[in-house]
C-alpha cells in the first residue's frame, strides 16, 4: 500500500490528472447507466422535445427522435470503455505472448511468428468489419471487439519483441538458466516483469486505439446500431445533420467524452514508466533548485549565482546581450 502511495507522490502532475480523469470515467462506466434518467432508446413522442435544447428535464437535451442525450452518453461511456478495455486486454495479452516467445526462442519460431504478425498488420480493418457485421449481426459490439483485437496486437508484439531481444542478452537471464530455471518461468518471472512499463504503456495505447478506431468505424456506420456506444451516438448525430442544425448538445457531449477519455489515457501513459522500474521510482529529484527552475541542458547551477541573479528566463535572455568571452570577466564577478 505504501508502495502505491510512494508512486503516487512521485508522479508528474499530468499523470496525476490523467489518472484522476480516467478514474472518473471508469466510475461513470460502472454506475452511469444506473443513474441515467431515461432509457436511451426511449423516444419521447412530445414534439416539443424533439431536438430540444438542454433543459431541466433533459440535462443534455434530446435527439431528433426525442431520446435523452444524457442517458445515451452515460450508457455510451460504459459501452465504449468496455469495448476498449476488452480489446486492450486481449490485444495486449496476445502481443506479449507472441512478442516474448518469438524473441526468446529465436530462430524458426521468430521467423514464423514475425510472419504472422506482419500478415495481421496489413489486413485492412474495414472490409473485415463489414464482413463480420454481416455474419454476426445483432451480437452487439462483438464484431467490433473481435476485429479491433485481431488487428490491434501486431504492433504491440513488434515492440515487445524488440524489448525482449535486448533483455534476453542480459546476464541475469543467463544467470536464471544457471540456477536451473525452466524456460517458461524465465519468460514469465524474469523477462516479463522487466517489461511491465512497456506492457502497461502498450495496453494504454491499445485502449486509446480501440476507442479511436471504434468511434471512427461507428461514425461511418460500421457498428451495431442497436447498442449505444459513443460512436453510435455520433453516427446518429451526424446522419441527422445535428451539426448543420446547430444541435450542439447532441454531438458535443459524446465527442467531448471520447476526447477526454483519450486525453486521460495519454496523460496516464506519461506516469507509467515509473511503475515498472524500482530505480526510476527512487530517483525523481527536483528540477527546482533554490526556487529556480533548472533544465537538464543548463549548466550545473551554482548556489551563489542563483540567489544573486535574476531568474532562469531573465538570465537566458540576458546572455544574448553579452559580448563574447573575450571581454574580461572579473573573477568571482558581477554579471552586469
Amino acid at each position, binding site marked *: 500500500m505504501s508502495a502505491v502511495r510512494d508512486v503516487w507522490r512521485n508522479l508528474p502532475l499530468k499523470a496525476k490528472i490523467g489518472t484522476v480523469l480516467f478514474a472518473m470515467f471508469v466510475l461513470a462506466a460502472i454506475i452511469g447507466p444506473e443513474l441515467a434518467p431515461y432509457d436511451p432508446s426511449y423516444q419521447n413522442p412530445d414534439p416539443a422535445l424533439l431536438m430540444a435544447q438542454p433543459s431541466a428535464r433533459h440535462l443534455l437535451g434530446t435527439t431528433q427522435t426525442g431520446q435523452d442525450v444524457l442517458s445515451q452518453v452515460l450508457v455510451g461511456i460504459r459501452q465504449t470503455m468496455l469495448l476498449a478495455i476488452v480489446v486492450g486486454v486481449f490485444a495486449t495479452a496476445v502481443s506479449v505472448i507472441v512478442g516474448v516467445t518469438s524473441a526468446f526462442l529465436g530462430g524458426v519460431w521468430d521467423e514464423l511468428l514475425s510472419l504472422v504478425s506482419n500478415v495481421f498488420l496489413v489486413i485492412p480493418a474495414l472490409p473485415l468489419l463489414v464482413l463480420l457485421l454481416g455474419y454476426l449481426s445483432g451480437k452487439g459490439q462483438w464484431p467490433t471487439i473481435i476485429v479491433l483485437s485481431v488487428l490491434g496486437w501486431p504492433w504491440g508484439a513488434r515492440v515487445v519483441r524488440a524489448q525482449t531481444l535486448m533483455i534476453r542478452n542480459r*546476464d541475469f537471464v543467463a*544467470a536464471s*538458466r*544457471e540456477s536451473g530455471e525452466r524456460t517458461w518461468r524465465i519468460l514469465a518471472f524474469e523477462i516479463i*516483469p*522487466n517489461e511491465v512499463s512497456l506492457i502497461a504503456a502498450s495496453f494504454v495505447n491499445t485502449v486509446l486505439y480501440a476507442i479511436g478506431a471504434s468511434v471512427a468505424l461507428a461514425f461511418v456506420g460500421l457498428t451495431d446500431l442497436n447498442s449505444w456506444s459513443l460512436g453510435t451516438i455520433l453516427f446518429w448525430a451526424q446522419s441527422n445533420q445535428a451539426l448543420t442544425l446547430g444541435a450542439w448538445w447532441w454531438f458535443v457531449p459524446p465527442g467531448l467524452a471520447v476526447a477526454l477519455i483519450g486525453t486521460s489515457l495519454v496523460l496516464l501513459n506519461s506516469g507509467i514508466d515509473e511503475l*515498472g*522500474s524500482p530505480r526510476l521510482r527512487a530517483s525523481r529529484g527536483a528540477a527546482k533548485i533554490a526556487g529556480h527552475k533548472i533544465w537538464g541542458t543548463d549548466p550545473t547551477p551554482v548556489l551563489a549565482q542563483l540567489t544573486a541573479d535574476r531568474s532562469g528566463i531573465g538570465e537566458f535572455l540576458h546572455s544574448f546581450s553579452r559580448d563574447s568571452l573575450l571581454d574580461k570577466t572579473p573573477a568571482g564577478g558581477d554579471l552586469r
Partner: protein
Amino acid sequence: MSEPVIVSEPAVVESAAAARGPLAMEAVGLNKVFKLGRSQVLHAVRDVSFNLYQGAVVALVGESGSGKSTVAKLLAGQERPSSGVIKLEGNAVNVRGDRAFRQYKSQVQYVFQDPFSSLNPVHTVGYTLTRPVKLHQQEVTDHEKAVTALLEQVRLTPAKQFVVKYPHELSGGQRQRVSFARALAARPTVLLADEPVSMLDVSIRLEMLNLLDDLRARLSLALLYITHDIASARYFADEVLVMYGGQIVERGPAEDVTQRPAHPYTQLLIASAPDPDNLGSVLKSGNVAVKTGAEKAGNIGPAATGCPFNNRCPFADDKCKRENPALQLVTPDRAAACWHLDVAAAPQA
C-alpha cells in the same frame, strides 16, 4: 646446438593444484569453433586441457579475445564444445536435455562478471536467492533460513536487512556477493568465476578475493578463476594457465609462472602490469618485449598460422610463423608453448 624435439602432443604436466584435493573436473582437448557467417570461422578455443581439484584455485589468465571466457562457458554447459570431452568426477558430461542440464548445474556453477547486470532489477535479493534454493535444495522447507545462511556465508549481514533490498540499492561489491550466494545455493563442487572482481573498485577486490578463498577452503570448492589481471592470479591461485589466441601458452604453479615467466606473452603481461614498487618503470623502460608487444596491442589479433603470438613476439622467426608449438615441459610442473624458450628466458637488456 641441438634442436628441441618437436612435440606434437602437449606435454602432460603435474598440476600444482593437485596437492589440494581430489580431482573434480577434467577438460580434455576442448575445441570451440564459431561460424561467423559467410564462411568465416573463429577458432575460439584450441585444444585446451586442464584439471580442477577440490579445494584448489586454477587461474585462467588472458586478454579479452584469448578464449578464456569461452572455456568457462564450455565448462558451464552454456556452450557445447566442437570437440573434446569434459569429465566430472571421472564420468563424461552430457548436458543434452533440460533435466541433464539441471543435474549438471547442481554440481557446476558459473559466476558472472558484471554485478550490474547479473541480478534482475525487479526482484529483491530474497527472491533471487530463494529460487535456486527451491530448485537445488529441495529437501529444505524453511527457505528463509536457507537464504539467511547463504547471506551469512558471503558476509552480507544482517541478513534481514539485505533480503528486502533491490539490486540498485546495493553497491557493486554487495551485488557480487549476492551472485556468489546464488551460485552457492546449488551446493556445487566446481565454481567457475569469470572475472569476478574486474568490474569492482580496486579497493574492494581484495576483500572479494579473500571471501572467495575462504569459501573455497570451507566448502572444498574447485575454483576456476578467470582474469586478465595476472597479479591477482599470483596472489590467489595455485596454478596459472596463460591463454592467448585460444590456446594455453604457458602453465605452472602461480608463483613460478609470475616470477619466472617462460613464454614471451607471459613476460609481456607481467611487464605491463602496474608495478607500485617501481615508479614509471614500464612507461619509460627499454624492455624489448614490452615495447614491441605493446605497440601493436589492440591493433593486431592473434596470427592465423603458426604460433598465434608470432606477429607480436620479439623472438619470432620463420619456424614460429609456420608451426604452432605445443606445450613443452620446462620442469615437471611447468610447460610453455614456444620454440625459443631458451632465448626468451635470457635476461632482458
